[in-house]
């Protein structure tokens, strides 16, 4: 390592040099943190922490920023980690609220209840859309059963008779269908497999419903896994003749070709604000009271009746405690009350505001929140 030709040793005081730096850095940090803290001390600001589902994260960030313009003393920090991770953080008391796409399961609910009464209510609606990358055609239509067969690997080519029958006027290419699915545990997959299971007995039996399922199509070598919505979106974009499922917001942002799905009334519908709220309005009676959120059934909102109803919609929920320390309870009440009323006017593309009757579930829940 060292060249041995000069007998010279620098006895620089190595330690002293470092000490100086440490002191300078310390002073810098102190000055910096003082500068930043001074304005805050005057206002006495409250920070609420939340974590959970990634799906509503952009919407929540939008709300946080809009709400921040009205109320400067309450700040909210939200970390998108996934529904499961968020509920765990919430259970351990690491965060003040959690967001979850599927409703809290009864088992988790009971565990949480040991620590205090919890409240769950929907804050925003989303939809899962089927996207494809067949350059030749646009405006494809499919029904749940055919879709299930595609995702099971039973239908191998785009010009299969069953797809042709649903799209009589389209010129479908004789190309193999590549199926893109979520490789990570995801609420999107749960909602999507719930829809496929409702549409096809065979899918229910062979694959089932879950956040993570064994896709049969992966075993025949025509499947690609993608991590998160971005992973699936990227895989579909880069793979010609592929098909996949993502949240509506992602499909819109990336300008994907979406597939119109056949709803319960036999009409083919695309996901948009109108068709999604139609589905929710038809099923809003199934939203349980906030104190018994575990009773909510994911299936109740899928394949909703109504001519205009889009079949794969789901709520994103927030979970909060019934009691908080005094100042925090006021902050939480104020923020979520705003979210459920004025906040619903600041909805970004790809999400749909909850209808008034559903928002009331949340508003009633917030009445119950008490400071201790």
């Amino acid at each position, binding site marked *: 390592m060292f060249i041995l030709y000069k007998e010279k040793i620098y006895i620089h005081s190595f330690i002293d040099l470092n000490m100086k730096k440490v002191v300078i850095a310390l002073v810098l940090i102190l000055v910096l943190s003082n500068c930043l803290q001074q304005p805050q001390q005057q206002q006495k600001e409250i920070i609420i922490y939340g974590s959970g589902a990634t799906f509503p994260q952009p919407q929540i960030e939008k709300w946080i920023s809009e709400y921040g313009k009205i109320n400067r003393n309450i700040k909210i*920090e939200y970390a998108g980690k996934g529904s499961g991770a968020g509920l765990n953080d919430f259970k351990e008391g690491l965060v003040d609220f959690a967001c979850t796409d599927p409703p809290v399961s009864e088992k988790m609910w009971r565990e949480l209840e040991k620590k205090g009464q919890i409240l769950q209510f929907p804050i925003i609606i989303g939809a899962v859309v089927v996207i494809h990358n067949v350059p030749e055609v646009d405006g494809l239509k499919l029904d749940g059963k055919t879709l299930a067969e595609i995702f099971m690997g039973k239908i191998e080519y785009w010009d299969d008779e069953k797809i042709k029958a649903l799209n009589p006027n389209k010129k479908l290419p004789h190309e193999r269908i590549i199926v893109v699915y979520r490789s990570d545990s995801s609420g999107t997959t749960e909602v999507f497999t719930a829809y496929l299971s409702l549409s096809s007995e065979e899918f229910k039996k062979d694959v089932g419903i879950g956040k993570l399922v064994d896709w049969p199509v992966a075993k025949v070598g025509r499947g690609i896994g993608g991590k998160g919505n971005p992973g699936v979106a990227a895989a579909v974009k880069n793979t010609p003749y592929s098909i996949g499922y993502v949240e509506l917001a992602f499909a819109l942002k990336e300008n994907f070709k979406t597939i119109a799905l056949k709803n319960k009334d036999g009409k083919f519908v695309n996901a948009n604000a109108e068709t999604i709220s139609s589905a929710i309005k038809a099923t809003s009676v199934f939203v349980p009271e906030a104190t018994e959120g575990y009773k909510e059934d994911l299936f109740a909102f899928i394949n909703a009746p109504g001519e205009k109803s889009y079949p794969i919609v789901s709520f994103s929920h927030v979970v909060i405690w019934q009691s908080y320390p005094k100042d925090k309870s006021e902050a939480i009440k104020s923020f979520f009350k705003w979210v459920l009323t004025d906040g619903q006017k600041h909805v970004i593309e790809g999400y749909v505001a909850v209808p008034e009757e559903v928002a009331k579930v949340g508003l009633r829940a917030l009445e119950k929140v008490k400071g201790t």
Partner: protein
Amino acid sequence: MLRKLKNSLFLIYIVLATFLVTLPLFHIIFSVFINGFPVILKAGLSFLTETLPPPGEELAGIGPAILGTFILTFLSSLIGIPIATLAGIYAAEYPNSFFSRATRTLLLVMIEFPTILVSLFVMSIVVLPMGRFSAIAGAIALVIVMMPYVAVYTEQALKSVPERYREAAYALGLKRKQVVFRVMFSIARKGIVTGFLIGIAKAAGETAPILFTAGGAYRTFFIGLDKPVGAIPLLIYDLVQQPYSNYHEIAWGSALILLIVFLAIFIPVRLSVREVKL
């Protein structure tokens, strides 16, 4: 003739191979500059001070993340470097004792240890008992990640000093402490400082260790060591997973800031610490 040909062929091969090895580095620096620089130009100075904007709108800034990264790096260096240096000295000074050999082996294991497990470990021993994500938990996780690098580099650097200098120092009547800290340290300082820098760079750039510990905060500035704090790598990880182009732009800008911070620590110190020619 043939020998010369072989020689030059091999030389070309080595140059090419070196080029291939360093290519990713240049590509990263290049693409981060190309994509990140326009963002910072567009956002201006407020990119360093503002908080995170809502999706699909303006660029605003990443102030809390920058401050968070500095705090995490500073704290973890403050805790980690002294401990790790002492461990390195111990391993170098007592090369044959059982504990020293065990220390060396364990340090090498720690270098290879998956950082995500460190994160989980710190979550279970610090975050859960405290009941909160915090800057201090993030710093502890980073300490665990950075320490083996610092210790191993220190040990290697001290070991590379020829024995005769130690003997000469003893012959002058210096105490062991003086021999180690004044003679050996000074001679090996380039290697040791490199170890410090790699440790600091690790702390500034790692994502996994702070994933379950720091908590993240991008709209509020640092308010205390026991409160959640954000960091640039964590922010980038969050932002690229969302479909909004302004978030992707901010992520590129953040990557450039991270790169600049990294180069700003690394290059000047690396150059200013002169190698000791023996």
